[in-house]
């Protein structure tokens, strides 16, 4: 039996339905506004000013089983708040949501056994003990069969290359090693839904790649449904096909990641390497120069003018190497965030 979205007892989940359904979800906070100065501090004892922050505004989306979706947006856009709502950490101001048929903020144990939340800036392992001790506690909390636990632990520690570190106190691990341990703790009970909030924040490139590679492999193998928030576009490009762009608490775009560049970038980049050691002085008449390292140059040119510009360049100069590429996703997204409010709402076009 399938129940409609909203409050009430846990729903039975129909495998044909989306795993995550969110409908007009909103979360507003009241935040204290303190003025500078001693007098203001004194007056704050008697009368305080508050500001209403609309962290999430009428957000709606659906996610199918096995999807890996990126939540993109600048700091304070509402990404993490949405994840907190979906993992039941906080109650919404209004709106409805179900994950696996459960209303998250009812915090049903049956739901809590089926999802995980990993926050790159928060620790859930016991700081002074080896990670192994936290894993054993997880085994009991999630009632994982001992043989299955050992199998999964061996598999995960091998995949993340930390098998030799599980007996070392967590406080003595590097940030990258710690994050990999956090991932293991989050995955030991085989969650069907995984919320990842900045899982690679602060990690070096090697650790980032290890985590990315692991997540890609593991998600495909387990058919886990994953929502990922990250400021590292490399994470997003490596892992997700679908992206939800959220800004000022509202969804601005929901669709294939590849579509973002098509939709929001009207230019492409041409990379040229000239014969000799110089770049022609009049190169700027072909397009905007974004990088100049003689004899190489990178030009930004409107998409529709690419063939014409390329033909003219090849006709007029001796060029040793040429390449045309899309603008990096990072740049497009960053520009999108800067053009605050200029992105037309475009929900549910995936």
């Amino acid at each position, binding site marked *: 039996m399938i129940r409609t979205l909203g409050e009430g007892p846990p729903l039975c989940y129909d495998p044909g339905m989306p795993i995550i359904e969110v409908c007009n979800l909103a979360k507003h*906070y009241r935040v204290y506004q303190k003025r500078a100065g001693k007098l203001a501090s004194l007056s704050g004892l008697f009368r305080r000013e508050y500001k209403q922050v609309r962290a999430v505004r009428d957000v709606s989306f659906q996610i199918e089983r096995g999807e890996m979706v990126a939540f993109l947006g600048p700091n304070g856009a509402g990404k993490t708040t949405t994840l907190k709502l979906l993992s039941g950490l*906080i109650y919404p101001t209004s709106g409805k949501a179900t994950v696996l048929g459960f209303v998250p903020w009812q915090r049903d144990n049956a739901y809590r056994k089926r999802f995980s939340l990993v926050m790159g800036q928060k620790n859930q392992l016991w700081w*002074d003990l080896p990670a192994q001790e936290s894993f054993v506690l997880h085994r009991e909390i999630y009632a994982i069969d001992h043989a299955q636990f050992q199998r999964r632990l061996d598999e995960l520690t091998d995949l993340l290359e930390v098998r030799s570190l599980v007996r070392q106190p967590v406080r003595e691990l590097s940030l990258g090693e710690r994050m990999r341990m956090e991932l293991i703790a989050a995955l030991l009970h085989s969650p069907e839904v995984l919320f990842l909030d900045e899982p690679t924040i602060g990690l070096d490139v090697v650790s980032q790649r290890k985590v990315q590679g692991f997540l890609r492999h593991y998600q495909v193998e387990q058919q886990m449904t994953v929502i990922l928030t990250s400021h590292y576009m490399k994470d997003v490009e490596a892992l997700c096909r679908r992206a939800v762009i959220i800004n000022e608490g509202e969804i601005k775009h929901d669709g294939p990641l590849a579509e973002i560049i098509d939709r929001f970038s009207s230019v492409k980049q041409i990379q040229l390497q000239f014969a000799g050691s110089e770049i022609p002085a009049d190169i700027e008449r072909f397009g905007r120069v974004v990088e100049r390292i003689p004899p190489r140059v990178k030009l930004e040119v409107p998409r529709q003018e690419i063939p014409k510009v390329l033909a003219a360049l090849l006709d007029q100069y001796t060029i040793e190497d040429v390449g045309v590429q899309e603008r990096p996703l990072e740049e497009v997204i960053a520009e999108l965030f800067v053009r605050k409010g200029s992105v037309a709402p475009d929900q549910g076009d995936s």
Partner: protein
Amino acid sequence: MSPALRIKWCILRTSIAERLAYRGDFAFATLVRFLPIVTQVFLWGAIYKATGPSDTTVINSYTYGDMVAYSLLVMVGRAFSSMPGLTTGIARDIRDGTIKKFLIQPIDMLDYLFWHRVAHKLVYYVIAFVPFALVFWLCRHYFRSWPDNVTLIGWGLSLVLAFMIGFLIESLMGLVAFWFLEVSSLVFVYMLASYFLSGHMLPLDWLPSPACDIIRLLPFKYLAFVPAAVLLNKYDHQQLLVELCLGFGWVIVLYLLNRLALARGLRRYSAYGG
């Protein structure tokens, strides 16, 4: 073992391991806690001497020996009822978002904190047993007689009550952080008040009426006075039963208040800031 018991056992085991991670600091802190009792013994000695010959002077029905025995037993009671770091720890978890681990995992936060604290206390008793035994042996002549079995059982139960009431009061104060975030002033006020209201500073039966009658209606007396008074035979068996039942009633009331504060607090919790 049932799954629920296995979780409690595992929390207990892991917490013990955690507590023993900093062995040196912990052992030192445990031993240093005996210092106040030494000063208290000397202080009461000076007070009784100033009042008259210290071995015959009686103040409010307590001889100097009774007073030393009372102070030692209060120390034992406080070893059960004091919960260093519990309130501030809960408040910190709420403030910095660490509380999320209790909310996303299928565990009960209060249950988890309770067993965590039991583990801390067990380690403390193991380390402190020898110095405790030594101090009591040295001061054995201050105790009038060996209590009967009913009193001994009542004393054991009163210590359990001291632990539970101490835990529930301090966890309740920690949960206040859902509303006020910072609770250090509250902890300071509580420490001052409980030092007096629990009978840590003075035996509560020294206080004049009606202050004594009012204070005896509060749960704080179970933190120190009641366990000490039980072993000093201040209660007959019937009074002991009444005190224990009342204490158990306080456990239920405080437990319900904790549950209410947690449920209301979580509704209010905003987990802001990353």
